[in-house]
């Protein structure tokens, strides 16, 4: 009975159109320390076919001005042709490009936080952008999963 209920739930979940995400942030915890998780993240970004654009050292700026903070960086990544084509056709997207992920230490563990790319679909409803955001989300989930599983 219970098995049947679970099966039906699974089937309806598979057949139903994707539900709206109330969970608009993706946030994961890595068992690796900050340096380890940062390295895993950069490798995962490259393995997914993206170029690492830059690492913004938020903690360094804060500490230079006397504020206390644990390690805190923001990693930017993108694909050259894709960024160029999107900026040309959809300049409103530019403030969100390249894509980024915040990575920060919590003791000897590391947290990663970013928005679901799918959220951009609410900001920019143009139908031709939908598959782009969906692909970003799929890629991002794989990237985050690698960092989460790394030991």
């Amino acid at each position, binding site marked *: 009975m219970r098995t049947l209920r*679970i*099966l039906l*739930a*699974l*089937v309806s*979940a*598979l057949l139903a159109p*994707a*539900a*709206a*995400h*109330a*969970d*608009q*942030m993706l*946030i*994961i*915890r890595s068992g690796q320390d900050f340096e380890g998780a940062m390295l895993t993240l950069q490798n995962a970004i490259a393995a997914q076919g993206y*170029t*690492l*654009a*830059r690492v913004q050292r*938020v903690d360094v*700026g*804060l500490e230079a001005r006397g*504020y206390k*903070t*644990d390690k*805190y960086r*923001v990693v*930017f*990544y*993108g*694909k*050259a042709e894709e*960024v*160029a084509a999107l*900026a040309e056709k959809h*300049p*409103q997207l*530019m*403030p*969100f*490009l*390249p894509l*980024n*992920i*915040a990575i*920060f*230490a*919590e003791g000897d563990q590391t*947290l990663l*936080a*970013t*928005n679901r790319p799918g*959220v951009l679909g609410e*900001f*920019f409803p143009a139908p031709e952008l939908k598959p782009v955001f969906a692909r970003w989300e799929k890629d991002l989930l794989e990237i985050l*999963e690698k960092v*989460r599983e790394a030991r």
Partner: protein
Amino acid sequence: MRPAIPSLLLALLPALSALADDGARLYAQNCAACHGERGSGGIGVPLALPSIRALTTEEYLRRSIRHGRPGRVMPAFASLSAAEVDAIVAHMGSWNPGRPAEYAETRIPGDLANGGKLFQKHCASCHGATGEGGKGTGVTLSRPREQTIMAPALHNAGFLASTTDLQIKAILTQGVTGTPMVSFVRKGLKEQDIDDLVAFVRNFEQSPLARPDAGKPAPEPVLSVESPYDLKTTVANLKRAAETNNFIFIREQTLDEGIVPPGRENHNQQIVYVCNFGLLAQALNTDPRVGLFLPCRFTILEQAGKVTMMASNPKRLSQIFNNSELDEMCEKLTKMYLTIMEDATL
């Protein structure tokens, strides 16, 4: 082509047996960042405490996952299937040998006036004057905090939709061992007082706490201002305008710097970063996740002879963090961004 349901079912059978360890995986993917890998707490309450297990029902957990805590960081997990929610709840059960509680959905009648008086006297210091919860929900990731367990919001649609009157009564009667929430029977309250408090908390449902943007159309995701100057002058003006508004210039780059080979950048698309470090520190202390959109960034674009300044709108971004403590700060930031861009056109 319609999917063949029977073969789809067959294909799902292996997936089904995998559901048990799926609980652990789903918990790790969706919950561990905030609640700790084994429910020890990080932000939010320590879910794995035996006392919490003994006082909460599995239905409370299922509903909490579904509804989240609007405005209190914990999202509503609309994207998880019923089976996935069940798997997570089963996994949480494995932390403790004890059995979960069971309560009927009975409503407990009580004197609201007396409940309100008692609430101000005994509860407001931790749960807030209107039951909105202790301050600092988002603080705890990566930053020190004063109290190890934040008093949760009681005046919250997600909590009220998840809990039952009998659960609230049990918590008030027994306290939650291992947390600052003590037994109020031991503190001298009579059963009738407890019932009055339960009725008062339940009555929060009648007056939902309004969030500033509730019911209003969502703000634009992008703020943009046209510049009467060329790109180079606009960038210079923007830096100057930021400095007059107490922001420090951080860096200037092309949009594609780092992703195209050096020398191939498109100079018609520039990014200018500026920062007010006091504000940045304050924002990160409120919710470290907002560093994703900080320091402040302006994008300047020249297209067909027209120069436009753009910034993502903090007021809109604030909504995706589900943290009402950020709303006011983000609204202020939106105003600052607009002021800086408008000053740059003078």
